């Protein structure tokens, strides 16, 4: 048990524990806040993996925006029924079984690959992950098209969401 592994296991336990709470908590607002905890754990993992840009973006986008939107939605709809009655379906054991089967299958697959047992090599000397990400996103022979298409996707989402949320007024 080296220090590295403990540093990995702490956020991993946070993520899995919070994720379980997200799916079993009865109160929806608590589920949303547990989601925040799980997402924060993922941000810690990104920091461990030396993807610092993704770590902060995870906090800014997921906790600062997506979680806030979830909480707003919970507060807007809560009135009648949210926390009353059963929160899960009566046949909840079926998805549980399915999830377990998928997990067992994936774990077997992963363990079966000896290449996945290797620890990581050090980052190449002089690699600035942040700047290379910027270069990759804008240089024409790399990912400039996905970069622009992501913008179009978000535009479509905004137009669609605004249209749906307000109904066709005109």
């Amino acid at each position, binding site marked *: 048990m080296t220090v590295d592994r403990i540093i990995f296991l702490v956020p991993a336990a946070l993520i899995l524990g919070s994720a379980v709470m997200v799916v079993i908590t009865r109160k929806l607002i608590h589920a949303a806040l547990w989601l925040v905890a799980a997402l924060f754990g993922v941000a810690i993992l990104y920091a461990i993996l030396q993807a610092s840009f993704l770590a902060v973006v995870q906090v*800014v986008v997921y*906790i600062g925006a997506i979680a*806030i939107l979830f*909480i707003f939605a919970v507060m807007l709809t809560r009135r009648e029924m949210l926390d009353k009655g059963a929160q899960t379906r009566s046949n909840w054991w079926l998805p549980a079984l399915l999830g377990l089967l998928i997990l067992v299958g994936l774990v077997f697959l992963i363990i079966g690959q000896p290449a996945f047992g290797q620890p990581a090599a050090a980052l190449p000397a002089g690699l600035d992950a942040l700047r290379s990400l910027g270069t990759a996103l804008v240089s024409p022979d790399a990912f400039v098209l996905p970069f622009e298409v992501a913008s179009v996707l978000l535009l479509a989402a905004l137009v669609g969401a605004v249209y749906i949320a307000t109904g066709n007024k005109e």
Partner: protein
Amino acid sequence: MPFLNDPVNFISGWMRSLLFGWGLPSGLVTVIIYFIGITVLVMFAMVLDIFLVWVERKVVARFQDRLGPNRIGPFGLIQPFADIIKLVIKEDITPTGADKLLFNLGPVLAIASVIILWAILPISSKIFGVDLNVAVLYLVAAGALGTLSIIVGGWASNNKYALLGAFRMVANMVSYEIPMVVVLLIPTILANSMSVQDITQAQSGMWFAVLSPLALLIFLISAIAELGRSPFDLNEAESEIVAGFHIEYTGMKFGLFYAGELLHAFTFGGFIAVLFFGGYGGFFGLEKLGIFSWLNNSFVQAVVFLAKAMFGYWVIMWIKYSMPRIRIDHMLTFNWKFLTPLSLVVLVNTAVLSKVLSGLPGWGYVLGMFLSNLIIGYITVEILRAYGRKQRKTEANPSPQRLQN
């Protein structure tokens, strides 16, 4: 004198050798030294926070032609300590129906989201927490935690006013985050880096406040909105929703919200200094001259930085105590229809000019940037004036159609 030039490394080097002498592994030594260093930094921030209570009360008193606290200690300096003792021994009331855990989490998160900002605040070129290469976004991420603290506190109180205040505050904070993030891109472009140390170094010749005064203005406005201070203090609007999201908080928990707000304001003063006024440096090249080389000393830099941060804090207070609160619809309209488009225009302008003017000599670059900002500012004011004139006209003689509706 190594201590006077580089105090943090001097002390940490001394402690490192001391702890190695005890036979501890090097990883543990690093953690222990970080722990001690962070504790000292956070304690400094908290003591400063106590002092800020006094500053705030004294300054508001002067603005309102009063004396302010002047009974306990010289100039009332002991007053904040008396306040703290009072807050600690007050009964802590948790209202019925409150969500106990979240109710306690709110104030803790509120102050933690401010304290973690001090990890990246460059107090001087040698005294700072870390030089993160994503520091600018880290500032936004900490703001996200602050938003969360308010919504958690407001929701857990189980009170109509608290929830209303939290809703308003969050709508306000998230809206003004957009111009803030856009404007944060401008120092990033100008310094070609997101690290606050690099941004400070890039301003040793010329402040970014000169290169892009509009960006400074937009950042100041959105920072005040992010802080939830007047004229954007809809979260606590005493005359409408009593005290907003912290209505049910008593004793020390209320004190934590209050302390968090003051420290947040000061910290944002510090970030305004770092991003636009050269932080601990920015002497326009003076420090390179022989007689002014003492400006490079760590302690001098720290004093300069704290003075600039205090000035930023003072400006925020000045605005707070001179402006009336604006209505929530006006506030959101102002953000989405004015500030956000303007910030995007300034961003595009900066990006284009930083490319086009890069061939010019230093003064041409500065002049071009400054003039372009002036032109954008002038056009903006003209558009606003034309809009205002139109508005007044329709109000003076309303068309019959309007009356029917």
